[in-house]
């Protein structure tokens, strides 16, 4: 069996005005083929107006075991949400 092609992560912009969203992955020898294959695999029913492909190996992520530690800080900072502050009704809309 020959050398396996690298894995690419596929991001698609569904409509104008929306951001690209991860939809899946596929193998391809280079970015050009990854784009063409992504078009055939992920947009057969008008699912997109733009495609990004990124080699999976180039994506960095936190270890899921550290999630609790990584995302804990904001939990104690509830004042970052506007609903933390009470505005008297007679002040009006704010």
């Amino acid at each position, binding site marked *: 069996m020959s050398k*396996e*092609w690298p894995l690419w992560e596929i991001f698609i912009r569904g409509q104008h005005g929306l951001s690209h969203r991860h939809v899946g992955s596929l193998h391809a020898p*280079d970015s050009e083929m990854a784009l063409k294959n992504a078009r055939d695999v992920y947009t*057969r029913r008008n699912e997109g107006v733009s495609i990004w492909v990124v080699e999976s190996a180039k994506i960095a992520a936190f270890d899921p*075991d550290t999630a609790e530690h990584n995302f804990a800080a904001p939990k104690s900072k509830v004042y970052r949400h506007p609903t933390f502050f009470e505005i008297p009704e007679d002040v009006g809309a704010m």
Partner: protein
Amino acid sequence: MYAQLVETGAAETSEKDREFQEKIDRGVRIEANDWMPEGYRKTLIRQISQHAHSEIVGQLPEGNWITRAPSLQRKAILLAKVQDEAGHGLYLYCAAETLGISRDEMTEQLLSGKAKYSSIFNYPTLTWADMGAVGWLVDGAAIMNQVPLQRCSYGPYSRAMIRVCKEESFHQRQGFDVMRQLCEGTEEQKAMAQDALNRWWWPSLMMFGPSDKDSVHSEQSMRWGIKQNTNDELRQKFVDQTVPQAEWLGLTVPDPELKWNEETGCYDFGEPDWSEFFEVIKGNGPCNKDRLAARNKAWDDGAWYRDGLTAHADKQNQQIAAE
């Protein structure tokens, strides 16, 4: 189903395993890099890769009719459907790869005959009416199984299933439409539709796998949230949904024991020939050898093209590096 007789092994009892089971019970989805028991990982690799192989091999019985479709429109529709199956195979291979098996390993397992795929694709498609019966019954049975799999505890598999289910309804409807057109045609055409139903009915019921009392791996799969319904539950649902459709078409389901049960509100039906099912699974179905030979030929014949693309990509990379 598209994955039949998937072995699970038994669950371990360590602290981590217990925490994992609690997570499943709370309905938390498991993601690729999360800790998971080896049994869970292996079961999923077996199930998802088998499911993927089924999609890929499933292109063959229908591919058989692309060049012989009765009209240009039917040909275009069939092509689109077969292309979807390739896409479904890809989504699933990618989901399996997140569990640590490589695409090449899975391809190798399929081509060598080591991997299983659904028993249903080892039956021949003899007439155009089989395109109707396959879409209506086989894809109908697949939907029955895949809808609950959208809630599978493993995130990448569940997301692949959501994509697949969105596309699968077209497959079943176009099959029913082929049957309907034949049933509304000449006597001979209707007889063709009946013949196709006669041949595909029992193999379709076997797709759901052996009866619950003989399904040794179901229990663990259900505890892990991989499987949501038992084989018999899904088979019953399929029969209840499909029999009225057959009646609407004016076709007769080839089961003398089939009858409506007022008490249960379901159809009673006969037992599939399980010895036939196990023979097909073992590799002795009517088309097992043809299917594997066709996959191997496609892989070998495509080698020059894959190598060409790799060589081109290597050359581009060297040029970029040299600049």
